[in-house]
């Protein structure tokens, strides 16, 4: 066990020394990793934020029944009774035209304009919480509600959520494709970096093999090197995205304030951040492993025929 640990400790130290020996090259390589990872990770963050908004919307499917402006108290009570008889709905709320007007005044900042209208243009309305009703059930409920007396409009605005979900699915595929494509590029970058290192250290590798080094012993420092570069590259990408999101949130909060609402982008969750680090570290590891395997067999072949 202590021998195993000392071998890994030695390999890790060699990898760190290798990074320190060529700081500019190492930094450039890490920057390449971070930039390449930032794009798919950035799109992923955007999609996750949109998914959250869409999720909030689908979690609270609502139907709004707007009554005719001439509807009276008896009509309202009749609809109230009808709604109470519907077990499929999770609940409903009556919003009188007076309350609706008051809320509009408070939230939109158009109090003066509304005051000048002279009369209340808003109808009485029932806002119905549909819970997790299926599209078919929603449609049936809509038809039934539409048939009640003094009902002017029945609005079910979940179509945009479905469209957004479909777009998010396309976006998810785009992220997977970009991540695969860029991942392959990063593996190739690491393959080449390790190839150059192996060419530089070829004498030592050849000698080590002749005096009894296993392939694992030779491979290990390069694997640590690839993994470290991948992980540090991902950490830098995370930081770049954090700075970008902070800056965007400043601009978004200003925009949202104008519409009297709040809007902020969330960064990657801890779980997704960890996945980003592991993904990038694995890419570095794969590139290094592939390169070492290929060049070790090349060295074996050349030292045999020489």
């Amino acid at each position, binding site marked *: 066990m202590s*021998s195993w640990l000392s071998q890994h400790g030695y390999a890790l130290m060699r990898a760190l020394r290798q990074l320190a020996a060529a700081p500019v090259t190492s930094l450039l390589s890490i920057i390449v990793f971070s930039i390449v990872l930032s794009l798919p990770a950035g799109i992923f963050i955007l999609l996750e934020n949109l998914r959250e908004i869409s999720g909030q919307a689908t979690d609270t499917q609502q139907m709004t029944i707007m009554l005719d402006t001439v509807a009276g108290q008896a009509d309202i009570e009749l609809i109230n009774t009808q709604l109470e008889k519907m077990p499929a709905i999770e609940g409903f709320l009556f919003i009188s035209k007076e309350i609706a007007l008051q809320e509009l005044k408070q939230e939109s900042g158009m109090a003066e304009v509304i005051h000048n209208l002279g009369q209340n243009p808003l109808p009485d309305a029932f806002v119905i919480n549909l819970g997790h009703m299926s599209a078919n059930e929603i449609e049936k409920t809509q038809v039934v509600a539409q048939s009640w007396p003094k009902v002017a409009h029945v609005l079910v605005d979940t179509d945009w959520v479905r469209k957004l979900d479909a777009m998010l699915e396309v976006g998810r595929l785009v992220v997977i494709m970009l991540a695969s494509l860029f991942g392959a590029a990063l593996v190739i970058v690491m393959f080449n970096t390790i190839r150059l290192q192996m060419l530089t250290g070829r004498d030592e590798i050849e000698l080590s093999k002749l005096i009894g080094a296993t392939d694992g012993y030779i491979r290990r420092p390069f694997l640590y090197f690839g993994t470290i570069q991948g992980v540090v590259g991902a950490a830098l990408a995370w930081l770049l995205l954090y700075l970008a999101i902070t800056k965007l949130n400043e601009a978004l909060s200003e925009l949202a304030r104008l519409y009297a609402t709040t809007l902020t982008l969330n960064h990657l969750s801890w779980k997704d951040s960890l996945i980003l680090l592991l993904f990038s570290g694995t890419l570095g590891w794969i590139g290094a492993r592939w390169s070492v395997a290929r060049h070790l067999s090349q060295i074996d072949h050349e030292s*045999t025929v020489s």
Partner: protein
Amino acid sequence: MAAMIRFNNVSKFYPREYEALKNITLSIDQGELVFFSGHSGAGKSTLLKLIVAIERPTSGDISVGQQNIGLLRRSAIPYLRRNIGMIFQEQKILYDRNVFANVMLPLQVTAFDTKTSASRVRAALDKVGLLNKEKADPITLSGGEKQRLCIARAVVHRPTVLIADEPTANLDSGYARDIMAVFESFNQVGVTVLISTHDTMLLDTTQHRVLELDHGKLVA
């Protein structure tokens, strides 16, 4: 005495029909010092490479200790080499590190602990007379010192077999005698030593067995 190395009808062909060794049969006892002589291209280096599995025989059997080299899997070769010390014709010194670090390399490869390694490296350097140069840059060493560095590196892990390919090539006679004295001292403590050379002065004065190769055949 038990045989340490055995060749049984060993041949080695290279591509384009070049036959480096032809039907070699020989036996070297444990603790023996043997010279392989012959002109350049006679097959001396190939024979030594076969013992450490740098090359594989085209036909025939080779055994080192109780191991049949021909049956060794690729992954087992490093462990065979850890029991053999090798001094290469082209020295293979690493010039990016000092003398101490060069000699340390075989112990790093076998994961010796640091304290034991340091004392073993100093012991090996002391044995070849380079203890006062442990921090020296190899580029500053003379030809004889470089060769002694290679010997220290070959013996630091205390192998049972020591193989030297042309160890006195490019050395003047004084250095060559020093190097041979070092090999003799290892042989006296039971290490099996195989030396390939075409240094006639060395061969004429030795009391040890000399096996002569000519165009891949064992002639004496």
